[in-house]
């Protein structure tokens, strides 16, 4: 097995052609996932069983099954039903891009809602009582005290989830999308040089992860400027 360093150098710019789509999938799914996660979180934290139960089932389902299976169910499974192909959703579900965004968003929403719930549960109840005692309304307590503190507590776990999402975007290559892994797999199929090509892809992913982690460290440092350093 000869190892061709120059092949890594040659394939890097080719793989980078998929960077835009990788980041696009990451950003769009993260955004949709976050919005959905907040909705599920509110259901989960409500006191009504008919809201809590579906939220729990959702979280259980999406955390309990592989993302790849979820993607395949959406991509390959749904079109098996004629009515799906007749429905107004078909122009969306027809597109591998939207299937990937939907699967990634639904999946991350389950994790993020639990991460945020951990943050909410971590907020000192005494602070909520202080807010009540000052006459703040429930909405004001949530928006000024619970939410900002919960977000600060959730940031480290949330940054892990973003990194995990970045890696998950590679699954979109299984439904024909040419994001970085899709490009890499195509080059591999052409060159029969999996080591060099996937090492090139690995380098790019590691750089992205480094950027994400550094970014979150900066955000965390800023958000926790009130915490005394001992």
């Amino acid at each position, binding site marked *: 097995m000869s190892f061709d360093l120059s092949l890594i150098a040659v394939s890097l710019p080719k793989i980078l052609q998929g960077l835009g789509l990788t980041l696009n999938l990451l950003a769009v799914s993260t955004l949709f996932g976050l919005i959905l996660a907040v909705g599920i979180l509110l259901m989960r934290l409500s006191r009504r069983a008919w809201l809590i139960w579906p939220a729990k089932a959702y979280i259980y389902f999406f955390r309990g099954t592989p993302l790849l299976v979820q993607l395949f169910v959406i991509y390959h499974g749904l079109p098996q039903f004629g009515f799906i192909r007749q429905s107004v959703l078909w122009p969306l579900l027809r597109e591998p891009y939207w299937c990937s965004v939907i699967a990634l968003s639904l999946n991350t929403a389950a994790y993020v809602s639990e991460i945020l719930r951990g943050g909410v549960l971590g907020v000192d109840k005494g602070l909520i009582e202080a807010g*009540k005692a000052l*006459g703040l309304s429930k909405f004001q307590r949530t928006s000024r005290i619970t939410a900002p503190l919960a977000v600060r507590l959730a940031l480290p776990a949330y940054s892990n989830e973003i990194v995990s999402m970045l890696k998950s975007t590679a699954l979109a290559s299984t439904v024909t999308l040419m994001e970085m892994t899709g490009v890499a797999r195509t080059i591999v199929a052409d060159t029969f040089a999996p080591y060099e090509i996937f090492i090139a892809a690995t380098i790019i992913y590691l750089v992205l992860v480094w950027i994400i982690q550094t970014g979150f460290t900066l955000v965390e440092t800023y958000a926790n400027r*009130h915490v005394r350093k001992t």
Partner: protein
Amino acid sequence: MADIIVLEKMNKFYGTYHALKDVDLTIAKGEKVVVCGPSGSGKSTMIRCINRLEEHDSGRIVVGGQELTDDEKKIDLVRREVGMVFQSFNLFPHMTVLENLTLAPRLVRKMATGEAEAIAMKYLTRVRIPDQANKYPSQLSGGQQQRVAIARALCMNPEVMLFDEPTSALDPEMISEVLDVMTDLAREGMTMVCVTHEMGFARSVADRIVFMDQGEIVEVSTPAEFFAAPKSERARTFLGQILAH
């Protein structure tokens, strides 16, 4: 003098545990009441019922003429007239001292930021830490944090101040700086209900002392009576333990 707080045959259960038993207590405007009693006797539960941090199960609670029921609007009205200071300070850690003080006046009283800050600075000066306005709570000592908490409550210009063991979490050398602020407040005529074991403070400031045990108000006396000759055996035992320290 008008009664600002009225508790009538008030009962409170935690599950099956009977935490407050037929509590009757009336507090007049301007009065200073110290509540004492052994740990677990229901002192916190009682004053937390006054601003509905706990819900009572039967009897009546009337604060400033408003009876406390499930009506959220009335609860909010009562809460903005009742200030509370907690044992563990409960300052908002992500806000500066000034932000802690201006939050409720801006959101609840709809005060302009400038006005709220002016008032905040006034009270910070009263509690003797105007120079800490832009620090975060974690950068202050315990005594300073508790004084900020008092100033935060005062910024809402409340009719009544509730204190739940405000000095119990403090290092001994910081207790007096907080008690001094509370004494000043009492002199200015604030209505105060204060759970504390600081008997020196009780003696010099309280109009009445309420002694509780096992969820009941056992005895209500003036400080002079209470310290000289407690009416109940339970109070005598309690005082013996407290003063032995």
